């Protein structure tokens, strides 16, 4: 499979979950395991451009797929606009849910570049923030939407 643009391979037991392969096999520990039962969304990554909860996908199911994890968002020292927006708008408190929220936020903005607050709330409904900092998360996604739209216009 390809992870964050890099070809990777490994042998795993069928029962290895994608999240375990990403964290333990590839040492990409930005993707978190929260509830481990498919509720919290901390393990959200993109598989072939679609957000999934990687604790509910087997690593073997992702064979040959393109995976994007939170580590693949920034380019070197330059944060992705959605990371920048979470940083500037205090879209995180403890930060545990943030990797998942960034992926869900980004997926939403790829589908809908100018979402309403209600659409943002629906887009992140699969991600729980144990600090309950949702107001600033919504604000961050809204800010990211703006900067990503302007970024495109400006060609940045």
């Amino acid at each position, binding site marked *: 499979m390809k992870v964050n643009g890099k070809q990777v391979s490994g042998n795993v*037991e*069928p*029962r*290895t*979950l994608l999240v*375990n392969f990403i964290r333990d096999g590839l040492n990409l520990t930005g993707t978190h395991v929260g509830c*481990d*039962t*498919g*509720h919290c*969304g901390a393990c*959200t990554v993109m598989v072939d451009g*679609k*957000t*999934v*909860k990687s*604790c*509910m*996908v*087997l690593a*073997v*199911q992702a*064979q040959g797929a393109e995976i994007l994890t939170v580590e693949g968002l920034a380019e070197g020292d330059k944060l992705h606009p959605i990371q920048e927006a979470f940083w500037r708008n205090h879209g995180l408190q403890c930060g545990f849910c943030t990797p998942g929220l960034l992926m*869900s936020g980004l*997926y*939403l903005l790829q589908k809908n570049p100018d979402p309403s607050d209600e659409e943002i709330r*629906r*887009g992140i*409904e*699969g*991600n729980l923030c144990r600090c309950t900092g949702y107001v600033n998360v919504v604000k961050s996604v809204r800010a990211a939407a703006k900067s990503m739209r302007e970024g495109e216009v400006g060609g940045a």
Partner: protein
Amino acid sequence: MIPKRFDYYAPASLDDAIRLLGEDEEAKVLAGGQSLLPMMKLRLAAPTALVDITKMAGLSYVRDDGDNLAIGALTTHDAVEHDRTIKERFAAINDAVVRIGDQQVRNRGTIGGSACHADPAADLPTALLASDAQFVIQGKEGQRVVPARDFFVDVFATAVAHDEILTEIRLAYPPPRSASAYVKHSLRESDFAMAMVGAAVTLGDGNACRDVRIGLGSAGPTPLRATSAEQYLMGKVPEDDAIMKAAEMAAEGADPPSDVHGSREYRLEMIKVLTRRSLKLALSRVK
């Protein structure tokens, strides 16, 4: 949490998949895995083998086959949600899928997987029952088509035999002046609903009901048709009094469980409320 050990197969064809299932009685079909994998992690399910049917091509589609809209079993909830024909002509199905799980689950979960999992508290089975869906099942002897009424057999049990695979769900295009709706009640959006109702109506002369189907979920081991309420409404103009009476009748036929999410009495009341709401919403959509 990690599931118990199992063998994994990703057959390239339906025939191979059916053969693999036939060779191992404890094997299970893996589609989107959004119910099966969590159950395996919790060790509520421990199949000896998974036959992953998502690697074979051709079971993900929404297409017109003349009399029906045919939906491939591996069509994701997200794809169903964004299909315009389903939204316009089978609104109950759209109402149900937009409220399934969350975006990540809808990206992965499939209509066929949800139907075959047959959780009495899941959204799609009830909506499919109210939509009078037909289920195309492939086995080694060939194909058979089972109506929704016979498809859901018990809790987590359907008409699909161990060595068969659901390949397609067909929805017959409703006649003019038809519409449907699906509503549910849960305390939090991602919870399993305490009650859910799907309704489909066709109006005839003088706005009298020419056809009515009411499906109840979380109201017994399988989704149920509220047959007496349906019969009561047939030929009547569905005004408030008639809808109220039909809702009472729907609850009389239901057998919801009592559990930590809600008592039986509470759920019966909610079935009445939701039957009214689903009928009214469906009627408001009749053009």
